[in-house]
């Protein structure tokens, strides 16, 4: 463009207001955009038409075909469900498939093909599809209609309509025959005839049942049985027909029966024939032969229609895609063109607008730097010209204001200098004072910290009380013990009960009067219960509010008190144990003598029944005494235990039936057994005895019924718990027996393990049940606790040490019959210090056919072993006089003669043999007192084992030669 013309145009443009210039600029850009939009609309019209065709014509066709396909499949599956399961839901589904899927889809297909896409649709194929669908629907209707009628199974219809009436008639004829025969008098021949008739009745009933079974799905398996039964029935009928005993009426009935039986056989053959035929189920046959092929045709045709629709749809989609690509290309070209035009127009306008603004900007910078001293020339009359004029006015005002400001600033700087000098002087003096104050505060804080640390370190209560009983200072206080809020300023009788307040005031006044430390022990109620305290009260030289005062240091000694009480209880239980053990031992020896002699007497008095009975009663009394003695030994932890690794869960479950019978119907048993319970080392029989004792106690505590809970768990007792109880810390296997019974008072609880202590009436309980449990648990290295509250119930917990050994069931020795205790001339060496007991043992062994050698002490026994040619078994008391007791004697004898059988006997087992109270493996013990039979059985058991050992290639264990 000519520069002159351009400048003129610009000038002409600059004469217009700025708003109009911008409006013109935007309108020109919008005109270009509108033009492009029109072109884009025209381009997308073709695309829209394609998509419309696609959506309105292709998609519904394909969807309808697919819906027909899905509907047919749905109807087939529903029909099969109805035929197989006879569930109304399937029938409803079948109807819904036709009503909601197939028929609407077919209508849509018709509409689309006949009205919208008439040229494109294959009408002949659609007509074929309609016909097939109608055939299919009709076929399915017949299947569903017949599926669950009796007629669907023709064999069953024959059975119902033909066989059943015939069978009823046969039954009535047989019944008439039987009735006729029952009325006849006669001998055994008539009875035989009656039996034959009954046989006929049974055979026919069986035949009828078999025929009914044949109707079932696998009924043909019974066909052979049915034929056999039929032949049998016919044979019986034929035999009966020639019987000379028949009356005229019976002959008539029998003839009738044979005729009806022939008819029955024919009907049965018909039933079997139909049942054999592959078409015995009409619905299934129709499904397989008619409905399924029709459905397959429909599915094939509908699939073909769907495929055609899909191909057409794909073709249309491709066309639409091509149109879309073209439209996008056109739009891209137009957009780039529009951008270029808009850029050029905008650039021209921006430059014309920016030029005067750039001049203004430069002038502003110069004004800021103070280098603008003249006005900017005004070149236009628009908004920018106005802005330039305003800028010139502002420049003049600013230059004047700047000069005035400079003068005021100089004056202000002078005044600030003077004031600053005064403030510096004052500041120095204040700094000195603050430093001194900080040093004093630090010293005070250090002192307080030391005092606080000291009082915190004191575990006791420390406080100052004046002579009137008022708390003056609380130097250290455990809030968990005296949670009564702030004490300072309160009086003793405001904090404690009157008698305790008086007690404390008396101590304080005594300390002030005597000027000596007063020591006192007392029990005080605290938030954590009753606790014991030991207090030391010392007079103070300083006065509080002009009153004398004393400092009190109170220490919690509850734990110490409890330990002392437990120690006393343990010592008491140990003393009782020693006492009962000692008594039981001597008692057992006495009982052994009495029992032995009574038994000998009993054997010899068989000819005198009265005396024989008296000795029998005496022996029973001795048995009761022995039982009592065993329970005392159990409490004294001196009973022989056959400890084995034992699964408590298994034992508890094994006893549940017994426990239920013991507890009765009014008490419910709950078990909470740990799944991963560890094994424990305990005598299982004694454990079961102990559990039974606990359960019986629980039952007695629940006379009106209740709930008993048996719980097992692996638990760990920590050192804190062990410190309060007589138990080693560590892992334990726990068994808890809880009841909802009457519970126990603390007084009863304190004495509950003592032997012979019982709350029952005299003669109702021995008072040894819990004692025995206590002894067993302690002897097994365990621990026992009882928690009980009156009216709430009781929980007894047994803690037994775990073992890593697997539980192996104890090998039960073969039982020895009472009659098989006779010896076979074996030699027994009896070692017993008590002459009377020894005498009984020797006599008993002689009586059983053994050769016997005897000794009163170990040394004599050793000599006998050396001199005697053959000793088969050493039978020795564990407790022997002298340096060598029975255990050492046995060890020495077995060292010299390996394999020698040993049988110990003892009144109790407090000895090295038993160590922790458990019998060592391979050793057998016969507890005193014992009966002759028990002795005989033990010997046969041991000697029998020796004989079986003779089969081994090694030396015989009992041989001392």
């Amino acid at each position, binding site marked *: 463009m000519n520069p002159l013309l351009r400048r003129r145009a610009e000038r002409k443009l600059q004469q217009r207001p700025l708003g109009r210039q911008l409006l013109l600029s935007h309108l020109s850009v919008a005109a270009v955009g509108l033009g492009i939009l029109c072109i884009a609309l025209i381009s997308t019209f073709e695309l829209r038409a394609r998509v419309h065709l696609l959506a309105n014509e292709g998609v519904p066709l394909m969807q309808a075909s697919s819906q027909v396909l899905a509907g047919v499949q749905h109807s087939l599956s529903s029909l099969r469900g109805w035929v197989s399961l006879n569930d109304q839901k399937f029938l409803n589904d079948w109807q819904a498939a036709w009503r909601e899927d197939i028929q609407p889809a077919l209508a849509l297909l018709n509409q689309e093909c006949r009205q919208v896409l008439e040229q494109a649709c294959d009408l002949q194929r659609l007509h074929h599809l309609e016909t097939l669908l109608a055939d299919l629907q009709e076929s399915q*209707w017949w299947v569903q209609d*017949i599926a669950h009628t009796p*007629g669907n199974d023709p064999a069953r219809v024959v059975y119902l309509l033909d066989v059943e009436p015939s069978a009823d008639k046969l039954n009535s004829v047989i019944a008439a025959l039987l009735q006729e025969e029952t009325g006849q008098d006669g001998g055994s021949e008539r009875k035989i005839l009656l039996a034959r008739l009954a046989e006929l009745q049974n055979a026919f009933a069986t035949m009828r049942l078999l025929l009914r079974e044949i109707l079932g799905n696998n009924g043909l398996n019974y066909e052979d049985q049915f034929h056999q039964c039929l032949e049998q029935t016919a044979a019986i009928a034929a035999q009966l027909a020639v019987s000379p005993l028949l009356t005229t009426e019976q002959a008539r009935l029998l003839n009738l029966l044979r005729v009806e039986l022939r008819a029955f056989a024919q009907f049965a053959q018909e039933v079997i024939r139909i049942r054999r035929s592959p078409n015995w189920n009409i619905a299934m046959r129709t499904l397989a032969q008619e409905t399924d092929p029709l459905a397959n045709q429909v599915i094939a045709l509908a699939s073909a229609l769907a495929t055609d629709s899909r191909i057409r749809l794909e073709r249309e989609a491709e066309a639409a895609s091509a149109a879309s690509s073209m439209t996008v290309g056109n739009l891209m070209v137009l957009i780039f063109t529009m951008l270029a035009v808009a850029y050029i127009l905008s650039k021209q306008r921006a430059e014309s607008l920016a030029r005067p603004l750039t001049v203004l900007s430069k002038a502003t910078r110069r004004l800021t730097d103070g280098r603008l001293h003249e006005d900017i020339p005004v070149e236009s009359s628009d908004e920018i010209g106005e802005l330039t004029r305003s800028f010139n006015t502002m420049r003049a005002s600013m230059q004047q204001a700047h000069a005035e400001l400079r003068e005021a600033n100089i004056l202000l700087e002078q005044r600030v200098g003077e004031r600053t000098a005064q403030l510096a002087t004052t500041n120095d003096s204040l700094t000195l004072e603050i430093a001194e104050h900080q040093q004093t505060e630090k010293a005070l804080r250090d002192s307080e910290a030391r005092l606080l640390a000291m009082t915190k370190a004191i575990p006791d209560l420390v406080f100052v009380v004046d002579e009137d009983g008022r708390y003056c200072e609380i130097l250290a206080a455990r809030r968990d013990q005296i949670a009564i809020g702030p004490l300072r300023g309160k009086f003793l009788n405001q904090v404690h009960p009157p008698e305790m307040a008086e007690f404390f005031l008396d101590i304080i006044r005594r300390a002030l009067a005597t000027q000596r430390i007063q020591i006192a022990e007392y029990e005080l109620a605290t938030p954590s219960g009753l606790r014991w305290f030991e207090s030391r009260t010392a007079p103070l030289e300083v006065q509080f509010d002009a009153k004398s005062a004393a400092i009190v240091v109170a220490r919690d000694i509850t734990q110490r008190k409890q330990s002392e009480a437990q120690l006393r209880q343990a010592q008491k239980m140990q003393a009782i144990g020693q006492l009962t053990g000692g008594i039981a031992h001597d008692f057992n020896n006495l009982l052994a003598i009495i029992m032995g002699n009574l038994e000998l007497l009993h054997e010899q008095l068989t000819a005198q029944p009265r005396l024989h009975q008296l000795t029998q009663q005496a022996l029973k009394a001795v048995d009761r005494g022995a039982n009592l003695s065993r329970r005392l030994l159990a409490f004294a932890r001196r009973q022989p235990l056959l400890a084995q690794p034992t699964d408590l869960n298994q034992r508890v479950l094994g006893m549940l039936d017994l426990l239920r019978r013991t507890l009765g119907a009014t008490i419910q048993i709950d078990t909470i057994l740990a799944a991963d319970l560890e094994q424990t080392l305990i005598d299982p029989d004694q454990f079961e005895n102990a559990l039974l004792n606990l359960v019986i106690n629980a039952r007695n505590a629940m006379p009106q019924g209740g709930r008993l809970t048996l719980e097992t768990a692996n638990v760990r007792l920590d050192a804190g718990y062990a410190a309060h109880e007589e138990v080693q810390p560590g892992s334990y296997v726990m068994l808890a027996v809880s009841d909802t019974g009457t519970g126990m008072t603390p007084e009863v609880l304190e004495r509950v393990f003592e032997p012979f202590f019982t709350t029952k009436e005299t003669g109702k309980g021995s008072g040894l049940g819990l004692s025995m449990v206590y002894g067993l648990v302690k002897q097994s290295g365990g621990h026992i606790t009882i928690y009980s509250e009156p009216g709430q119930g009781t929980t007894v917990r047994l803690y037994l040490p775990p073992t890593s050994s697997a539980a192996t069931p104890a090998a039960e020795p073969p039982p020895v019959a009472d009659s098989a205790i006779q010896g076979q001339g074996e030699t027994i060496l009896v070692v017993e210090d008590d002459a009377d007991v020894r005498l009984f043992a020797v006599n008993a062994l002689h009586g059983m056919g053994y050769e016997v050698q005897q000794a009163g002490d170990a040394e004599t026994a050793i000599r006998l072993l050396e001199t005697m040619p053959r000793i088969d078994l050493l039978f020795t008391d564990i407790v022997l006089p002298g340096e060598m007791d029975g255990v050492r004697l046995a060890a020495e004898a077995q060292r010299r003669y390996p394999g020698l059988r040993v049988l110990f006997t003892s009144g109790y087992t407090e000895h090295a043999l038993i160590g922790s109270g458990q019998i060592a493996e391979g050793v057998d013990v016969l507890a005193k007192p014992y009966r002759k039979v028990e002795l005989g059985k033990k010997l046969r058991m041991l000697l029998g084992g020796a004989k079986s050992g003779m089969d081994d290639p090694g030396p015989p264990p009992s041989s001392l030669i």
Partner: protein
Amino acid sequence: MIPWRTYLKRTLLITALSVGATYAATDAPAIPSSTESSQETVAAISRQMEVFGRDLEQLRLFMGVAKVSDLDIGIRSAIPRDVYFQALTLWQKTDRLKFEIMRAHTPPPPAPVGDIAMQDLLPTLQQAHRLLRQAMDELRMADETEAAPTPLATDLFTAILNLNRQLDSMLERHFAPSDVYIEVTLAIGYAARLLARYPDTIRIPAEPAFEPNKQPSDVYRRLIACLQSITRIFQALELPVLTIDTSRTDMAHLTPNDVFVVASLIVSQLDFLHKRLDIAKPPPQSAYPGLKFPAHTYQRAGILQAQLEQLECHAAFHCPTTPERARHESAAAPTR
């Protein structure tokens, strides 16, 4: 203006039915009273029925069954096929009676080949009589049949109907609603086959709702309505058909046996049409449905009624929209 598709359809229908109707009209099996051989046939049938009736009466007296009074069920027909189907029913009942006495069935007589004529009746009646005699022999009754009397000019159809009624009364297991149900189901099968010729029809319409407390007379009325529909179809096709006049029918004394007669007549008419139109596929064999009450049969007859209305509509060429026509009278009017 008739759409071209409907026009085409009607043309096809007219052609199909006209061929059948012409064939039926030329071979219309009316009683051949004009020819000598037909007279002989009728005479033979009459004689056979007379003998049968006499033996039946003898047996009735022997069995001690009360005499059944005649009942007019409102059907008049002299068409061989109708008479034949009644004769077939007579055979069925005789066979059932024989079974109840002798515990043995007899194979059914062979179906006539082609159109049913009067001479097809005689073998069926003779076989029914043989069965009756076998039953009498079983009961050791003497043969007291006298020589055949002079031919009777009686209404064969009505005579067989009455024989049927008497025979039914002598059965231990009477013809029951379940037998009617079987017959109506068979008729539905026939009607569905006929409707299959018309693509826009619903071959087996939805079953109407179950209405309890129906009596045999209710079923009878609905079946008579079906039969009337059939007569209209036949009339439209210019085919000979039975007549119905229920004005003298004593509804209170109708038994399932009488209803069965109407149902069997419907089957006979539809069977005729089926053969006329040369439909290859036979209807499904209906099966024993178990215990059924008149209400069940009434419900099932509703399907048949809806089918026949569609057929009637197509036969009369005035079907507006077929699905709407696929309704039974229960849907259109309140239950009586």
